[in-house]
């Protein structure tokens, strides 16, 4: 029975809750604003701070806990299929060559390399390096690993032009290529160049993936799937000082909020996969710093199937790309941390054409659309549920295209399902997709642009475009390659509009505890924690 007295008390309580909630949210807001000003001031001095800190000598010892969004797919180099596996594998294995945070090539297990002719690469290997199981790293190990990467069991496609691995002496190998392929050296900075212990693979067989052995700075200790991965220091690592820390632990925290809370409460030291709008709330926390690469190779783009109308029409594709106001999208979605993208490479990458810019021009777009002769222009765009930038990204695109008279229907699906529909079944006209970067431009072409690549659903190309791509990969002269890639980019993004309409670069953001030093983010978002150290 609901008497007057009861009702009164109940309403009073409700009022109390309301007041409490409102009070809380208000105080939050005001403190946010205040802190934002504070951190802006801080940010200005941050660079100076970091340099000061870096100038300190690295300290040995301690452990670092990294909060990551997902577990790895596989720690066996030939079975790993996700770019998100790299942060986990870098610690266990060294690669033959490597790249720094600006993606410039650096020696790894190969001290030096040369190209005697167009179709061979000679690698001089480092001496005195041992695998975690005590066996020697030598030319035999390199031959074993490259042949394994090219075997039936492997999912690595990048070394298929390596016909033979010739052992010149114990620490020199010569790769014989079937055709000139400039991408191979940089491919060896990633999965194809990870060197695993042949003895351990022969001993463990299928179990190797659960007990990986390499030459890297850390040894595998234990793994709880979707829980944590523990590495310990490799005391015999060939780099005299590294690794500095005794233990490296990854903890899987799917939710961004969970990662942020864990960092704030000191349970983890570094978190990855932070969205641009969380940065504001994070900057209010004490003892926390941001780390971002100079430019991001990750992007948001519209991918289409050029074998289906209306995308089989060049003028239509050009109309779409001119109808997109990239600046507004970047401003709205990236909180100032992203950049508009006019080609598939970030604007300051060596293969990108700095002069290539696609103007937002609705009038031109309308005219192109009219010239295209497409009647009743419309298409359906797939969206992945797991995409952080959705559905806002597609909403803005839909609105911008509506302005020139193109109707976009959207279809939201779970990630794997969308992926399958777009690329395996080739049953969708377009998809709002993310793209990840590769160290060599040709490796990106292989995935997204060439006619028989998996992600080119419409197998779209022209003979001239094909020739350009082959030519750009046939010389090792970077200046000459850059020139050819400029031409390719212009065709890809503007003259032909092949497969992808680049829209914006996606910021790669790490947040670290102040006591963590020596971490630099690279533009591929493949975090490397090998040189990290902790200030006590």
């Amino acid at each position, binding site marked *: 029975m609901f008497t007057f007295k009861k009702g009164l008390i*109940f309403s009073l309580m409700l009022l109390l809750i309301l007041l409490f909630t409102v009070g809380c949210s208000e105080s939050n807001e005001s403190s946010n604003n205040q802190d934002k000003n504070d951190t802006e001031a801080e940010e200005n001095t941050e660079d100076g701070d970091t340099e000061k800190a870096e100038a300190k000598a690295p300290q040995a010892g301690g452990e670092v806990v990294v*909060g990551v969004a997902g577990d790895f797919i596989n720690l066996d180099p030939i079975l790993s*299929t*996700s770019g998100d596996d790299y942060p986990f594998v870098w610690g266990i294995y060294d690669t033959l060559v490597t790249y720094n945070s600006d993606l410039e090539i650096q020696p790894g297990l190969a001290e030096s390399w040369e190209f005697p002719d167009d179709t061979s690469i000679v690698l001089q290997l480092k001496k005195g390096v041992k695998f975690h199981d005590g066996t020697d790293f030598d030319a035999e190990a390199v031959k074993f690993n490259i042949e394994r990467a090219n075997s039936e069991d492997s999912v690595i496609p990048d070394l298929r032009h390596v016909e033979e691995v010739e052992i010149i002496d114990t620490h020199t190998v010569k790769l014989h290529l079937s055709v000139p392929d400039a991408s191979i050296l940089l491919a060896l900075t990633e999965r194809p160049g990870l060197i695993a212990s042949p003895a351990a693979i022969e001993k463990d067989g299928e179990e190797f993936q*659960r007990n990986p052995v390499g030459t890297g700075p850390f040894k595998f200790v234990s793994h709880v799937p979707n829980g944590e991965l523990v590495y310990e220091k490799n005391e015999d690592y060939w780099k005299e000082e590294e690794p500095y820390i005794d233990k490296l632990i990854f903890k899987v925290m799917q939710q961004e909020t969970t990662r942020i809370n*864990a960092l704030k409460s000191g349970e983890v030291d570094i978190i990855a996969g932070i969205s641009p709008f969380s940065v504001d709330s994070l900057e209010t926390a004490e003892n926390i710093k941001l780390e971002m690469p100079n430019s991001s190779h990750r992007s948001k783009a519209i991918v289409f199937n050029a074998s289906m109308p209306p995308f089989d029409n060049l003028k239509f594709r050009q109309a779409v790309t001119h109808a997109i106001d990239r600046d507004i999208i970047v401003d709205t979605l990236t909180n100032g941390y992203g950049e508009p993208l006019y080609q598939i490479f970030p604007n300051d990458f060596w293969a990108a054409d700095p002069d290539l810019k696609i103007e937002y021009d609705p009038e031109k777009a309308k005219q192109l659309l009219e010239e295209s002769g497409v009647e009743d222009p419309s298409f359906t765009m797939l969206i992945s549920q797991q995409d952080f930038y959705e559905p806002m990204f597609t909403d803005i695109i839909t609105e911008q295209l509506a302005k020139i008279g193109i109707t976009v229907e959207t279809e939201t699906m779970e990630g794997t*399902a969308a992926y399958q529909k777009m690329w*395996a079944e080739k049953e969708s006209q377009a998809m709002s997709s993310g793209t990840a970067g590769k160290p060599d431009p040709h490796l990106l072409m292989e995935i997204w642009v060439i006619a028989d690549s998996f992600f080119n659903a419409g197998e779209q190309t022209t003979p001239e475009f094909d020739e350009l791509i082959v030519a750009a990969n046939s010389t090792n002269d970077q200046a000459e390659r850059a020139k050819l890639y400029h031409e390719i980019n212009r065709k890809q993004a503007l003259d032909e509009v092949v497969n992808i309409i680049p829209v914006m670069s996606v910021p790669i953001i790490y947040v670290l505890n102040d006591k963590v030093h020596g971490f630099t983010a690279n533009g591929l978002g493949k975090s490397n924690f090998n040189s990290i150290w902790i200030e006590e």
Partner: protein
Amino acid sequence: MFTKYLLRRLIYVIPTLLITTFVVFSLILLIPGDPVVALLGENATPEKIAQLQEQMGLNKPIIIQYGDWLLNAVQGDLGRSLFTGEPVFDAVIGRLGVTLQLVVISTIISVSFGMLFAVISVYFPNNLLDYLARFVSIVGASFPNFWIAMLLVILFSLHLGWFPSTGFTNITDNPGGFLKTVMLPAISLGAIGIAVITRHLRSSLLEVMESDYVRTAYSKGNSRWKAIFSHGLRNAMLPVVTTIGIGFGNAIGGTVVIETIFAIPGVGQLAVNAILQRDFMILQGVILILIMLVIIINFITDIIYAILDPRIEY
């Protein structure tokens, strides 16, 4: 009698298991998104997809695939994860311990607080304490557990720093650490249970307090506390035991969300990942073992029934 009942229940279990595992198996293979495509990611090519499908037997009709799975499962082999190659049984059992610890603690919290609030409510009818108890139970039932979880994290780990916001320590590794890590997720998970048990037990208790034997207890000179505790509660608990049993099952379901928020590597997280990756081997294992768990809980509920009320026979 009880053994006969046990046998009858066991026989029912078999078709239940067959039907549920077959439905789950078909559903995950019928929803769009091929495990091979998920597995290959950026390295997918039409040839690799075909090759892997062949290797994993995914190109066979679903009924044949299910048959293969069943044949192995009957022999105790639940197969291996499509992604990690980890044996399914190990994967599920490894996480089940974590989830069970969490669910047991959350059930203990729901039952003890639920009983406390219900008794307070009945002992002080229409008093402020009664309203407070009923208010808490409304809050527990109305607010989703993930929201309660976030509030708890903000208050107890970010502001006060009493409990960690993520992770899990096994009770066998470190009981102190276990209590610290389990507390916030267990409260978030148990909040709805507190609410349900309070409301259920309160009304059941009110009803029992009107009955003849309680009046007899009063007339023998028993105090109200004694009447509630010694005479009322035991009888009033009977219907609530069912609620607790159901609540336990619900809590296992709730771990899917709570484990994700607190980054606890339990069965819930395992299941979510298995669905996203289309790892139906793992998912089958999870479902199979959870069904068995629910069946066991139902048994336990029935046994508790018999203990509480000796008149019940099976």
